[in-house]
């Protein structure tokens, strides 16, 4: 059986949305057309579930690898620091906002860089930025805050203090229920692993249900996979061995060993041009068959590199 990724390459050259062939549904239709099975209803309705519409991530290599981002599904990208997660997120947001869609970014650790987003051509007026944890930082002294609340009367504020992750989950709930967003992204990249793993699976199931049958792409980036089976698409990113691309790209791959060699490379003559990123597709639930690992590589570039 041919891989659906073959047809995705051709589709990406011409259209924004990409719909891979649902082979299971096709097979079912062919069987039901046989005279022997005429009038027989399929036992499993899951087989005829419509294939989600796919939208571009803005990076050709990822689109070729995954077929794009499925609408109405949860897509999760994870990897360590400097693995290109945020670059993929910005590229996806840029593609979505250029399609005139309204997007939302739930920034759990308040790490979003507006200059990078502007360089990635994200239409900032179409991006809702929710910075979690701001209030929490402001009222880090819980006891003092509680005392303030006790002093106040009935018409005084009584706001429950929440951590950034709890805030992000509630905000995501509201955004998905509100509807109309082309993409809702949750940035869990800098959240400590202990906290990220503590997010209950029921929350992810709820998000999956809320986003189902809607044109919204739910996009999550983090250090480790959090959504587990709720993620329709799971992609792992990591920097390749020679992660710094540029005139001095050999510096990291083949580290200079002598001080003399270090001295010969003046630091002001070097430039960080970008990252070489390897992507590995760990799960794609649009095809009902065992998941497999497919790799792709792409390069990010610094804004100043032009």
């Amino acid at each position: 059986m041919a891989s659906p990724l073959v047809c995705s390459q051709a589709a990406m050259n011409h259209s924004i949305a990409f719909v891979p062939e649902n082979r299971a549904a096709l097979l079912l239709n062919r069987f039901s057309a046989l005279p022997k099975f005429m009038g027989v209803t399929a036992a499993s309705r899951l087989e005829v579930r419509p294939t989600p519409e796919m939208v571009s991530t803005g990076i050709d290599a990822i689109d070729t690898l995954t077929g794009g981002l499925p609408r109405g599904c949860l897509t999760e990208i994870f990897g360590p620091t400097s693995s290109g997660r945020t670059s993929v997120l910005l590229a996806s947001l840029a593609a979505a906002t250029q399609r005139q869609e309204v997007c939302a970014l739930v920034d759990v650790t308040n790490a979003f860089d507006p200059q990078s987003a502007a360089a990635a051509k994200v239409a900032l007026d179409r991006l809702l930025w929710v910075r979690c944890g701001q209030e929490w930082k402001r009222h880090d002294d819980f006891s003092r805050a509680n005392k303030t609340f006790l002093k106040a009367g009935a018409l005084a504020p009584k706001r429950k203090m929440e951590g950034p992750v709890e805030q992000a989950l509630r905000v995501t709930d509201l955004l998905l229920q509100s509807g109309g967003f082309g993409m809702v992204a949750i940035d869990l990249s800098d959240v400590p692993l202990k906290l990220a793993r503590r997010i209950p699976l029921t929350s992810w199931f709820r998000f999956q249900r809320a986003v189902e049958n809607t044109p919204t792409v739910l996009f999550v980036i983090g250090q480790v996979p959090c959504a587990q089976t709720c993620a329709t698409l799971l992609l792992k990113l990591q920097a390749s061995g020679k992660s710094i691309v540029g005139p001095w790209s050999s510096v990291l791959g083949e580290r200079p060993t002598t001080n003399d060699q270090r001295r010969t490379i003046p630091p002001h003559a070097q430039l960080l041009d970008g990252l070489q990123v390897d992507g590995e597709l760990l799960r794609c639930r649009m095809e009902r068959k065992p998941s497999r690992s497919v790799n792709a590589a792409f390069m990010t570039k610094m804004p100043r590199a032009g």
Partner: protein
Amino acid sequence: MPFACIFVPDFPVEALLRAEPELRSQAVAVLEGKAPLQKVLAGNEKARRAGVEVGMTKLQIEACTDFVLRARSLLQEAAAHSALLDCAQSFSPRIEDAGDDTILFDLAGLGPLFGPLPKIARDLARRASEFGLEANVAVASNPDTAMLAARGFSGVTVIPAGREAEQLSNLPVDVLFVGAVPSPILETFDRWGVRNLRGLAALPDVALSERLGQEGVRLQQLARGSISRTLVPVEPPLIFEEAIELEYPLMLLEPLAFLLSRLLEQLCARLGARALATQELRLRLELENGWHAEDDCAPQSTALDLSDRRIFQRTLRLPVPLLDARIFLKLLQLDLKANPPGAPIAKIYLSAEPVRPRAAQSGLFLPPSPEPEKLELTLARITGIVGEGSVGSLEILDTHHPHGFSMRRFAPTEPQRLDTWSSSSEKHISESNSAITALRIFRPPLRATVTLRHGKPARIVCSKQIQGDILWAAGPWRSSGDWWEQEGWSRDEWDIAVQAESHIALYRLVYDRLSGRWFLEGNYD
């Protein structure tokens, strides 16, 4: 030329019942004056049946049970009068303000628009009822006849042209003097035995003129329905304000929400009747004792009147014109929850800035976008979770400062038609064969200890996770700005690579030249 009149009987009572409709099933009397000399100003039909008369003292009424007594509220009467004007204005542009409880207006030419006269009269009564006022409506060929009929007959009355005298004949002569100071002419009529308009209309003209002068003749013409005059039109100002004067100060936000709901429904009904919507709601609360304001009030929703410390104001600005009382209520609730008044509330004023409603037609081939009403509620709820100033869209400032941006209210522009935006999006996709290396900012930046070797960073100690030899460094990239202001900045930026647990991480290292300190500003991802 037909004219219509809307008359609200027992206007002071109706003005109060507008804010408290649950009292309609009870006997309600309105008192005027200072305690203990309060006297009855007006009462509803049930109160009159129970024996309440205008001028009775409060003590006399208190002897009876099952009465609801309320103090007269000029605020609510003014609001009810404005509602009455809006009601008339929604049908005809030529209206005459004939009193607090009476509005006259011209119906000429409205037939093709609203239907025959009886239908217009019924629609008028229904519209007044939607505004919370039980009004009498009369239609006649001249304004004074319409006014007499509205004052004399309850419900809807339509008097055909030429039958004015016949229709008015059974009305008591008192209707000629309603609202005025008791006239000596009325006593004269009483002495003559003239009890109704039929008797007055039948009196000889010359004899009446000799005895009562021109006023007597005018009253007789009114009784015959033959007087004719021109309407004195007024242009009511576009002020939409509702107010409630509370009997007891409110202590909790929940009962306040009930009152706000009623006010908002009235405001929306008035705006809707004039084919308007609103983009700005102003809530003004008169507080009972003292003043309390939040320090971190958002600029877009705060208007503080510092001259009077007993007033609490909130202004709700909306990105698009809306006309939905439930959405307004929820937004006000969320706003008050985040910024409570802090003291008991004595009076509530709610006003709306009228604007033309939004005319939008969604297209089949346009990309999805949130409904403005839902989006506004969602944003208010999110603001309640993450706090003011943490939600919105970005605006890059015209500066070289690396953190030069500001947050602004999120109001996405309407999507354009498919044929215009498809070319730009395709262009973008064709260009985007590689992604931009994104920086993740540490807020606040992490303080670092850096060891230099040959003028470039060689070792960094920042935290448990970020420390060790710097494997690769590029820089410095020097920038400075705002040196003419107190917030001047000057910095050297380095891009560094540090060995993490199992991979290499790239960071932006900054040397603050003014303070002489090293900071880790973010990491490339």
